C-alpha cells in the first residue's frame, strides 16, 4: 500500500501547488468573477444588438425565417413619409423636452439649494414622479387630458378663458404638447436632484467672496455655479437625451402614436411595424436607424467626461 501511495502523492503535491498558483492568479480569478455578468451581457445584450442589425437586412416576419435582402428595408423606409415623420417627431420631442427639462431642472435645483424649512421633505417629495412607474403616471395624464372630462378644460372654462373643451390628445399640436409636457414632468426630478448633488459640492465661500467683490446674483450663477457644474451637466444631459430619444412607454400609454401619427416616435413606430404588423425586418431597420443618433450622444458624453478629467488635472486612467 505504501509504495502505491507515494507515487500518487507526488503528482498531487505538484498539482496542488499549480492549483494554488492558479487560485492567486488575478487574470484567472478575474475571469471567473466576470462570468455571470458577462454571460448575461453577451447573450442578452451584445448578441441581440448584432442580431438586430442583421435582422434589419432581412425580410423576417413573425413565424417565418427571413432571407437576406441587403438594404431593401432601408430603401423602403427612405421613401416612407411616416418614417420621416417619426424621425421629425423624435427629434422635436427630444430637443424640446431635454431643453426644458434642463432649464426647469436647473432652476428647481437652485431653488432647493436655498435654506428653508422642511427642506428634506420637499426634496423627497420632488422625486416622487421619478419613482412611480412611467406607464402609471402616463395613465393619470391620459385622464387629465381626456377630451370630455379633462380637469384642465373644466378649470379653464370656469375661469372663463375658453368656451369649449380642448381636445388635448385628439389634436396633432395639442397631442405633441401634452406628451412633451408629460415627459418633462417625469424628467425634471431626475435632473434637479442630480444637479442639486453637484451644487452642494460648490463651496459657499466662493459666493461670499464674489458677493463681497460686488457680484450680482446672476454673476454669481454665471461665473461660479455654471462653470463648476458643467461636467455634471454634461453627464446628466447625455442620459436625459438618450432616454428621451428612445422613449416608448409614455407615448404608448398616452397616444399610441396617434392622432394621425403625430406623436409616433421611432421606438413606437418600430414596435408597431415589428410586433403588431409582424414585419420584424422593417421594425429592426427602424430601431437600427436610432443607433447613429445614440452614438452621437455617447460621443458628447465621452468628451464631457474627458473635459472633466482635464479640469481636475488627472491623467486619463
Amino acid at each position, binding site marked *: 500500500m505504501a509504495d502505491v501511495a507515494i507515487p500518487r502523492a507526488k503528482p498531487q503535491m505538484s498539482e496542488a501547488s499549480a492549483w494554488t498558483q492558479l487560485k492567486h492568479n488575478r487574470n484567472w480569478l478575474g475571469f471567473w468573477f466576470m462570468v455571470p455578468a458577462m454571460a*448575461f451581457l453577451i447573450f442578452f445584450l451584445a448578441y441581440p444588438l448584432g442580431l438586430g442589425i442583421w435582422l434589419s437586412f432581412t425580410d423576417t416576419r413573425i413565424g417565418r425565417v427571413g432571407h437576406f435582402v441587403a438594404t431593401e428595408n432601408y430603401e423602403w423606409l427612405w421613401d416612407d413619409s411616416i418614417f420621416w415623420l417619426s424621425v421629425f417627431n423624435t427629434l422635436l420631442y427630444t430637443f424640446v423636452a431635454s431643453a426644458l427639462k434642463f432649464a426647469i431642472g436647473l432652476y428647481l435645483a437652485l431653488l432647493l439649494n436655498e435654506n428653508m424649512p422642511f427642506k428634506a421633505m420637499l426634496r423627497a417629495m420632488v422625486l416622487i414622479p421619478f*419613482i412611480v412607474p412611467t406607464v402609471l403616471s402616463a395613465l393619470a395624464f391620459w385622464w387629465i387630458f381626456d377630451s370630455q372630462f379633462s380637469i384642465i378644460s373644466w378649470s379653464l372654462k370656469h375661469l372663463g378663458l375658453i368656451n369649449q373643451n380642448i381636445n388635448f390628445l385628439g389634436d396633432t399640436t395639442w397631442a405633441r404638447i401634452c406628451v412633451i409636457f408629460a415627459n418633462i414632468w417625469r424628467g425634471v426630478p431626475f435632473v434637479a436632484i442630480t444637479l442639486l448633488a453637484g451644487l452642494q459640492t460648490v463651496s*459657499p465661500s466662493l459666493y461670499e467672496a464674489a458677493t463681497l467683490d460686488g457680484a450680482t446674483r446672476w454673476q454669481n450663477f454665471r461665473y461660479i455655479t455654471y462653470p463648476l457644474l458643467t461636467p455634471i451637466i454634461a453627464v446628466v444631459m447625455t442620459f436625459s437625451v438618450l432616454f428621451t430619444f428612445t422613449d416608448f412607454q409614455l407615448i404608448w400609454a398616452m397616444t399610441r402614436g396617434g392622432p394621425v401619427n403625430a406623436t409616433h416616435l421611432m421606438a413606437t413606430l418600430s414596435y408597431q411595424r415589428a410586433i403588431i404588423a409582424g414585419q420584424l425586418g422593417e421594425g429592426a431597420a427602424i430601431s437600427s436607424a436610432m443607433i447613429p443618433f445614440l452614438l452621437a450622444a455617447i460621443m458628447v458624453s465621452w468628451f464631457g467626461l474627458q473635459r472633466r478629467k482635464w479640469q481636475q488635472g488627472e491623467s486619463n486612467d
Partner: protein
Amino acid sequence: MTDLPTRSIDLKNVLSGSSPTADHSEGMSYLQSVPRRIVTLYLPLAIIVIVLLFPFYWMALTSVKPDEQLLDLDRYNPFWTWSPTFKHFHKLLFESYYPHWLWNTMYVAVCATVLSIFASVLAAYAIVRLRYKGAHLVGGLIFLAYLVPPSILFIPLATVVFQYGLFDSPLALILTYPTILIPFSTWLLMGYFKTIPFELEECALIDGASRWQILIKIVLPLAIPGLISAFIFCFTLCWNEFIYALTFLQSTSNKTVPVAIVNEFVDGDIYRWGSLMAGALAGSLPLVILYAFFVEHYVSAMTGAVKE
C-alpha cells in the same frame, strides 16, 4: 478651487443638508428680505411642487370617487368628494387578475434584481480589486452597455426569447431585465468598492483568506449601503420596465402590472376611469412606500450613477 464638483459629492447630504462645508445654517440668505424670498423662492417652488404632485392627487381622488361624480362635472365640484367609495379597489382586487399581476411584477422584479446584484458584485469586485488584464476596458464596455436602450433591443430579443422557448413566461423577463440592471449596478458598486481601504484586504490576504472569503466577510459588509442602493434602484427599474414585458408576455394572467393595466383595463367602458386610476395607484404604492423608507439610498443610487 481644488474642490471641484463630482469628486466629493456627499451622497447622504443631498436630501438633508446643504453644503458639507457650511457649518453656519443661515448662509447668505440674510442678504434677502422676506418679501423678496417669497417671490423668488417660495412662490416658484410651490408652483413646481404642485404641478409635480397634482397627477397623484388626481389619481388618488379619481380612484375613490363614485362613478356618477366622475362624469358629472356640473353638479359636483371635481376637486373634492364627500362620499369616497372603495368600489373600484374592490373590483380590482376581487373581480380581476390584479393580485396575480401584482404578484408577477413582484416575483420578476425580485428575481431579476437578486440575479443582477449577484453578478454585479462579482464583476465590480473583479474590476476594482482584482484588476485583471483589461479590467479598465471591461469597465468601459459595461458603461457603454448602460447606454444601450431597451427600445433598440426588444425586436431581436423577442426572436431570441422565442428561440429559447421562453415566450410568455416570467423567465423571459427575469433573464432579460439583468441586461438593464447589471451595467447600472456594477457601475454603482464599483464606486462603493473603491472607497473601501485596500489595507483591510491586504491584512486578510496575509492571514490566508481567499478572495472569495475577502469578498464575503470584508468587502460586502462594508458595502451594505451601496448594496441597498443598488437593490432599491434595480427593483424600481424592474417595476417600471414596460417594453420587454409588453413584447414577451401574452396571456392575461402572466402580465406585469404596467402592461396589464394598459392592455386589460382600457376597454370601451365609460366608467373605466375609477378602476383604471385605482389600478395605477395600487401599482405605484409599493414603490412609493419603499422609497419613503430608503430615500437617501435611492438618491445616492441616482446620483452615484452619474457621478462616475
